[in-house]
């Protein structure tokens, strides 16, 4: 067992974990932050995307011990309680989700996409979210949402 500490959504957390415990399972099962989802076991789908030290990261690609000392933000911590991040609001406005399962990961991926490229073209958005699968929307409304959040509403 390994001792780890990290800041998750602004709170200092300490835990004792198996070295093989994935970060996503640590977040979901030990911290009960179940907004981060698991949709594959090969790091293709992006449903588990969170911010680690401010950068979007697939939390199934890290062991919890590798995030020791890091700052982690999950969908629950993206905006202060009761408020919506501009991306969250844009997904709502543009019907950027249906079943909602991929949505937290998609939003967290888009956070870094827009930080790196505040005014992305449609093609850049489509490329930027290609590490995240959505089976419901055909992506068009997701693209619209990210455009809206970027202040580039069609």
């Amino acid at each position: 067992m390994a001792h780890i500490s990290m800041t998750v959504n602004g709170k200092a957390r300490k835990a004792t974990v198996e070295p093989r415990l994935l970060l996503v399972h640590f977040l979901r099962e030990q911290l009960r932050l179940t907004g981060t989802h698991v949709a594959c076991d090969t790091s293709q789908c992006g449903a588990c995307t969170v911010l680690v030290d401010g950068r979007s990261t697939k939390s199934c690609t890290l062991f919890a011990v590798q995030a020791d000392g890091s700052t982690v933000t999950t969908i629950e911590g993206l905006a202060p309680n009761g408020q919506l991040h501009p991306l969250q609001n844009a997904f709502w406005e543009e019907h950027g989700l249906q079943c909602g399962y991929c949505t937290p990961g998609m939003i967290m991926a888009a956070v870094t996409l827009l930080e790196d490229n505040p005014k992305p073209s449609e093609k850049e958005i489509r490329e930027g979210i290609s590490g995240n699968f959505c089976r419901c929307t055909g992506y068009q409304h997701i693209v619209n949402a990210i455009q809206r959040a970027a202040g580039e509403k069609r």
Partner: protein
Amino acid sequence: MPTTPVLPKLVGQRVKRREDPRLIQGRGTYVDDIALVGMLHLAFKRSDLAHARIRSIDTSAAEALDGVEAVFTGAQIAEFLAPMPIATPFPSPEHRAVAADTVRYSGEPVAVVVARDRYVARDAADAIVVSYDPLPAVVDLEQAMTGKPAVIHPDFPDNLAIALVPSGTGVSASGSVDDSAIDAAFANAEIVVSQRMMNQRLAPSAMEPRGVVAHYEPGKGTMTIWSSTQNPHILRTFIAALTGLGQDQVRAIAPEVGGGFGAKINIYGEEYVTAAISKRLGIPLKWIEDRSEAFVATIHGRDILGYVDVAARRDGTVLGLKLRLIADIGAYNMLLTAAIPTLTMMMANATYNIPAVRVTLTEVFTNKTPTDAYRGAGRPEATYFVERAMDMLARELNMDPAELRRKNFIKPSQFPFATQTGAIYDSGDYEKALDLALKNAQWDRLKAERDAARSEGRLVGLGLAMYVEVCGIGPSASLPTGGWEHSQVTIERDGRISATTGASPHGQGNETTFAQMLADQFGVPFEHVTILHGDTGVVKQGIGTFGSRSQAVGGTALLMAGAKVKSKMAKFAAALFEAHEDDLVFENGTISVKGSPASAKPFASVAAYAYVPVPLPEGLEPGLSDEAFFEPTNNTYPFGCHISMLEIDRDTGEPTLLKLVAIDDAGNLINPLIVEGQIHGGLAQGIGQAMIEEVVYGNDGQLLTGSFMDYALPRAIDFPRFELGASVTPTPVNPLGAKGVGEAGTLGSTPCIVNAAVDALSGFGVKHIDMMLRPEKLWRILQGGRS
């Protein structure tokens, strides 16, 4: 007089979804988010062979692991769990949730572990040692029909689950067959096009894998089961039957469900096993599917081979259609497996007035994951076969594909139209959809662009496809579970409205659309309406969400229940107003006497009176709550036209979809924003089938596309911006005039893209290309054409 805000009518408006705030903040509760005190976790040991006899299973190492509570082999589970039921009337081999003596597909469960957490459960499953006597794997569909290299189920010779069932012209209800009309059609033909086409196997791939939590409470003798299902009431029925409980003793809950696409209609072995072991041990249990498991353990879709023959005159008049279907259903019949290809038979008439149609269906067992409903479920296959064949005919006749179709359409005056294949199309105007698609796509201009591109040496093609599908499923005669839907509407004491629906959604936004409808019906604010669903403890009856039925069937039940309650509320209001109940107006959160707005009383005050009825109007019971079952008289038949433009890279064979124009006619729309989303998603799956998705098995029956590394799920970069449009032809089958839209996108898109690919390669002598459009396949055609 107090002023009240004027409430807009919401039906037909692009209302933002009320489901979204919880989902975008990570506050939805999916099955895997549920944690019960004392809950243990299951993991299944699965066969790594496609076909084998189990010689022995050694569970000792698994049982010795710290944290393992119990291990059950298939033989042990068979002692307390009956074989899996199906819901179709076809003969079916015994199917154990966990194989007891023989495994028949790679991934079939052979044992199950109960342990402290999912990591330990997985360790223990891996520690189970199974010894097999391998048998030859049956993989090739047409070889399977000869009984080679093995017979999978001894009672089904030549692996035939269903052999050569005919339907169409000359086939009577009793099964007698008269070939004269179909033979005459082909004898009189001036041209016949024939093609073998494979509609390949797909993995539905809802982003949320399946999962179940079962909690049997021995003290109460009741079971609560949470499952990622499209139909909790059907789940309750079957769980009760297999655990020996009454339906009143089982509560089934579909919490947030992360997509279904038909694959979560089926009731799976893991659901039965989790419930049965929970009952046996008296503790709550959870099983969550891995994605790798999902590829083998969740049903697959499609996998139907079609032999199509079309007889026509040289002017393009279609005289006859023959379609011989052979479905590879995998190793077992699941809940609806056998019925899915019958929908392909039913819809083989497509949008055309064809004098003679003959369809035959054979279903074949192979050593693969069983098939069942996947978005469209039988109708995309029919559409694909017919629309590819129509395109081949147009090419042979050198006719514009749009004009060939126009010539053969069923005309608006012919509805309701009884097809040769047993459907009664409710309403339609196919030419309207075609014309709108041609206009929106600028068909003539696209043709000029294509030709200009070709003159530059680029391989650009155009494709067009019509579709009609059967939705709003359906009358009880068409569904073994019953085809109605149920709703209960209650005006609460404070004037707010709660309503239940049996149409349990998994992304369709029913909480929003149903609230729009009730807000309009009662003239109250949208925010005052709550839609309850997905819990058989709250929603007393229901069928579920599939077959594009939520609005057409569930929405109608909702309005029917609403009308009953409104009528009763009007009686209470009439007593208060000393007016006639027919003279009351419900609007803007008030009830008033017609022509006398000053008489308006708050809606809530009438509700409060109904619950403390002093005096109680004569002939009324207190309270405002009523229910309705809606049994439709027919299915609905939405239709449309999809057009695509596609380019193939001359050097690599890689296809790129340049344009997709869709006209979909789903009748009246409740929320166009949600409808667009449904169509986008359907298009994505239909395009995925045409271009990049395919489940592939090796000759040994091993699944070669067992993860998202190998199974190409479409990404955002795979699509252009879809261009949607709608025509509106209401259905007479329900008072909403709504036909259903969930599956529409998967019908026209697939053949229209393959038609475009064939068009792009027409200079290479290509008549047909089987899906998917793998670049290597197209590159070989390009090499052949050059040599």
